């Protein structure tokens, strides 16, 4: 029971880190970036290449994946995405699906089509007993790391100057510009951080699942579910939504294998019908 709960929480946390960048671009910049998974894939493959080809430690690969995806995000934001902010949601959807296709083919070309994984350092392998339940060390690692990230993000957004500037830029770009805030720069930075977090999520997920070129498409649906259930206007919304979905999915498959596959989709549709803005958002927005 406790094991299942832990597995669900770890799965949810991973979903959260993978999806949070998308929440940021969608909720704060009102931009649908379905290619978000491609940045996660970039981080995942970077980890695989660094560890398997160059023998870099897993712990160093994580920040590297963040930086790599963030730079990739910043470059693409500056060259491509910046033209899309003013276009319709539909255009954004099509554009980013086009990017996903390209990313899939590029990764296939350079990395091959087969599943690739890493071997975790021995310090993260194995299981420990906790209150009588056996829990994977890596899952604990994931939970702790993602928890810290969440707190950090929440802090940055609500307590720092950058956070308040970002919120101002989002509320009304024109006014913010008038107040001397460099909106373009703030958006670029936000996008880069969002992509970087995806990269980190991708790197972390190589510890549980393996990478293949279809990753962005396969996981896109999960990201979107997290956001539509949690709403995209806060950090805490997607966070709780991820946890809910992770636990519901794992527990559902454990206790009711026959209907396990339906659970998260059903939750999503139910939430969207009852609360179109998401389960954890304030109704006023």
């Amino acid at each position: 029971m406790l094991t299942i709960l832990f597995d669900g929480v770890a799965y949810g946390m991973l979903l959260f880190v993978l999806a949070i960048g998308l929440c940021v671009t969608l909720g704060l910049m009102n931009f649908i970036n379905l290619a978000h998974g491609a940045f996660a894939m970039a981080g995942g493959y970077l980890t695989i290449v660094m560890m398997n080809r160059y023998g870099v430690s897993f712990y160093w690969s994580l920040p590297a994946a963040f930086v790599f995806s963030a730079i990739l995000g910043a470059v693409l934001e500056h060259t491509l995405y910046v033209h899309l902010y003013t276009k319709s949601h539909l255009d954004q959807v099509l554009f980013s699906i086009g990017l996903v296709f390209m990313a899939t083919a590029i990764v296939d070309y350079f990395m091959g089509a087969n599943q690739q994984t890493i071997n975790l350092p021995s310090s993260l392998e194995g299981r420990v007993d906790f209150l009588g339940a056996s829990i994977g060390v890596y899952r604990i690692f994931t939970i702790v790391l993602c928890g810290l990230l969440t707190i950090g993000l929440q802090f940055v957004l609500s307590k720092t100057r950058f956070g308040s500037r970002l919120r101002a830029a989002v509320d009304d770009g024109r006014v913010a510009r008038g107040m001397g805030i460099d909106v373009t720069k703030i958006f670029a930075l936000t996008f880069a951080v969002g992509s970087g977090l995806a990269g980190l999520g991708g790197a972390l997920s190589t510890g549980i699942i393996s990478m293949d070129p279809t990753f962005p498409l396969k996981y896109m649906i999960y990201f979107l579910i997290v956001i539509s259930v949690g709403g995209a206007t806060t950090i805490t919304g997607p966070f709780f939504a991820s946890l809910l979905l992770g636990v519901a999915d794992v527990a559902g498959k454990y206790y009711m294998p026959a209907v396990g596959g339906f659970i998260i989709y059903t939750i999503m549709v139910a939430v969207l019908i009852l609360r179109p803005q998401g389960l954890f958002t304030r109704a006023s927005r």
Partner: protein
Amino acid sequence: MRKQILKGLAASAIALAALPALAQETVKIGLILPMTGQQASTGRQLEAGVKTYMAQHGAKVAGKTIEVIVKDDTGVADISKRLAQELVVNDKVSVLGGFGLTPIAMAVGPVATQAKVPAIIMTAATSVVVEQSPYFIRVGRTMPQMTFPIADWAAKNGVKTAVTLVSDYAPGIDGEKFFKQRFEEAGGKVLDTLRAPLASPDFAAFLQKAKDLKPDALFLFVPSGQGATLMKQVIDRDFAGSKIRVIATGDVTDDDLLNSMGDSVLGMVTSHDYSADHDSPENKAFVETFKKVNDNLRPNMMAIAAYDGMDVIYRALEATKGDANGQKLIEAMKGQKWMSPRGPMEIDATTREAIPPMYIRKVERKNGELYNVEFEAVGPVKDPTHK
């Protein structure tokens, strides 16, 4: 009267059309493979296997030039069917081959029957497929052929209870069914049968459930190319620590992926007909050429099936002296026996089913790489479902 004339005209038109076909100097082989999408790695291995065969044996047989046309069906059945029709009608291929998944073979079956073109099943492993068309020949293997040996081995080696975890699609369900049947016949007990969705990224719930049932062994089956994720999570769940043996068909410890799985899979026992490590001169030559032609890729069970598929076609053409007539070719394919890199192979003369040699293997480290090392030869296994 008029009808008869028309019929006569039609007949002569067919005869005319047939004449140049006979005289043609090239024999075309159409391969329908998943080159993109979820099954892409399967497609790559199959294509690589064909390339290897051509590199070893050249493109000429019985005075004919062999031309291979590869089409990407992205692993989607309705596209495969269309491609098969186009290959037959436009490219006038004499043989079809490939088919990454059971439904794809099922979709192509009617085309093969209608066009009277032999179709070589290289990948699809559900038993019933081969019965869908009299022009189907299987050169791979079927689920019962793979699962019987491991079920027998488990029963003989102290495994009393087992849980099965398979992908929820036809071969997976076949695997579950035949493992349970054979294992329980041998006196074992299957405690539960778990099915994970085909596109499941997280096996945690299923694995935990299997672990909580405390069986002696956990039997696994997932499609080739998808074992890496599963094994990662199996290792993470520490079955060894709970004294649960993990056994599987060879698809899980796929040669293509094995090296990336790491030392944690050392000692895992599986059953299959092919290992890149198989000790025979035929296999040594095969692996060597394969790696040379395909950028140091390691061949897996898909590659060998494609290789043997080409072998069957070449030998059939030799037997017909280059006649690519579908009826003659399929007759020449039935009952073939030859020495394959995986050992002595045979095509059943009546059921058109492959009879591959089966082995029990254990993952070991050799020359710094992980291999499925064969330690028990089961011998040829006939598919028990065909009457």
